[in-house]
């Protein structure tokens, strides 16, 4: 059976944690209130965006402590920048632009450069996380029936630029144009990055069991 898209799953999660089940994003009125930093809307914004921002950052940096530091920095920046936010503009690209800039600043920092194995912020640099299953690649994990770990391993192996594009497009549903603004690339380049990300996932995972893609109605 097809799993719900991660964004749909977040809407359910928001409902479980007391959020508005009918809206996975803030309404126009709430966006105005957000700019004015009204506490109730700040709380709703935090509930909607914390896991998404933390998850995005955590999948891009090496360790949880750094992800926490960056996430804190991002939310503090958001709080300070809210008075300048234009409610007529989409919120999600704005949030992820700030998050992406903070991650980029971290990658550019002298401390990170000294710690990095490659010492480069090049998009093709291969900086991998500690594997979820050390010593086993995505194919081995697939063969062992550990699909979730295999997918995680494959995503973690993507170069940072491709991983960013994949996360913003597939998990946040940003348009290629918006991703271009976030990553400071043109739309064509972003489309190419997304294609390359999918190609590399395919190379890591191989052809997957078609049963994965069946909807419940298609089950025999």
């Amino acid at each position: 059976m097809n799993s719900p898209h991660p964004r749909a799953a977040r809407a359910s999660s928001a409902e479980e944690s007391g959020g508005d089940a009918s809206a996975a994003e803030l309404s126009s009125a709430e966006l105005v209130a957000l700019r004015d930093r009204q506490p109730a809307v700040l709380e709703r914004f935090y509930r909607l965006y914390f896991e998404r921002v933390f998850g995005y950052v955590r999948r891009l940096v090496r360790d949880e402590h750094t992800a926490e530091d960056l996430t804190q920095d991002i939310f503090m920046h958001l709080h300070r920048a809210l008075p300048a936010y234009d409610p007529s503009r989409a919120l999600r690209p704005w949030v992820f632009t700030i998050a992406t800039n903070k991650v980029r600043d971290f990658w550019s920092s002298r401390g990170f450069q000294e710690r990095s194995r490659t010492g480069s912020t090049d998009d093709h640099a291969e900086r991998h996380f500690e594997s979820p299953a050390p010593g086993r690649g995505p194919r081995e994990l697939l063969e062992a029936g550990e699909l979730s770990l295999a997918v995680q391993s494959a995503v973690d192996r993507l170069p940072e630029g491709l991983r960013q594009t994949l996360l913003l497009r597939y998990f946040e549903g940003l348009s290629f144009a918006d991703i271009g603004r976030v990553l400071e690339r043109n739309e064509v380049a972003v489309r190419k990055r997304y294609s390359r990300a999918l190609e590399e996932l395919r190379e890591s995972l191989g052809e997957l069991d078609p049963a994965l893609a069946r909807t419940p109605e298609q089950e025999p």
Partner: protein
Amino acid sequence: MTGQDSSDPRLDTPADLAAALDRLPPVRARAEFQAELQRRFVDAPIPVAEPPPARSFAPIEAPPRRSRWLQIVTIAAAAGIAVLLWRWPYAPNWTVLGGSRFEHVTVDGKSFTFDQREELAAALHDGVEIETGEGQLDLRLDQRVALHLGPQTTLMLVRVPEPAMGAEITLEAKSGSVAVVTGPEFAGAGLVVRSPDADARVVGTEFAIDIFSEGTCVCCAEGHVRVLPVGTELTPAPVDPTEEPDDTPAVDARAVGPGRNNFLYRDRSMPAEEGEAASDHLAPLQWLRGAWND
């Protein structure tokens, strides 16, 4: 890929890969971190200040055509400005606050009295060493950081970059005590305070470092501070699964949270100790919090 740009990314993704991506395990943050950050974000608003300039979010447009001569003149002007700026180094904007009295404070051996606060502030460049002797000193670095230096404190201003660079501020406390409060424009700056025993790395927080003959105590009042033995890598090097494990103790990179402290002994064979923050170590922070009000 279809080339479409719909709101549903599944239309751009092969069905089996989409189904696989849907199986990606969720990432969960520590519950206490999530709760603490929520409290700071929602319940304790940061003092209102002009946010730092946001990066451009304007639509990408093709640059206008320019004549070759105009391009040459523009490049020459930019080069001239760059030379001018290079010859005009950044001078940090320090202010000596009037809260703590002192008779003499020395900067690189040169003595300043309390009435010479402006001259003292002007002398605070990268690389200088401040000694408070019997007195105490309160400093503010524009809207980024406020410091309280207790008696018998020696503090070196290793590196204080200009705000636009986004680089880390580096201070080195050689003795005494230093209390730190970050300000409205701290976000994105980064600060590390080194002592003989510990590096305290800051992300928007309030904390105090007190140096003793036995070691260094880091007390945190607000936010969290990551404290490591001096010279330790923040992130452990990736483990090669083919190597035999050794007996090197794991680096404890946990954060010191609000109301807690961490004492790192100078004798490295003694493990770090955690406990409640000492009220007398945090006392200077009460006054420093008002450093942004003038």
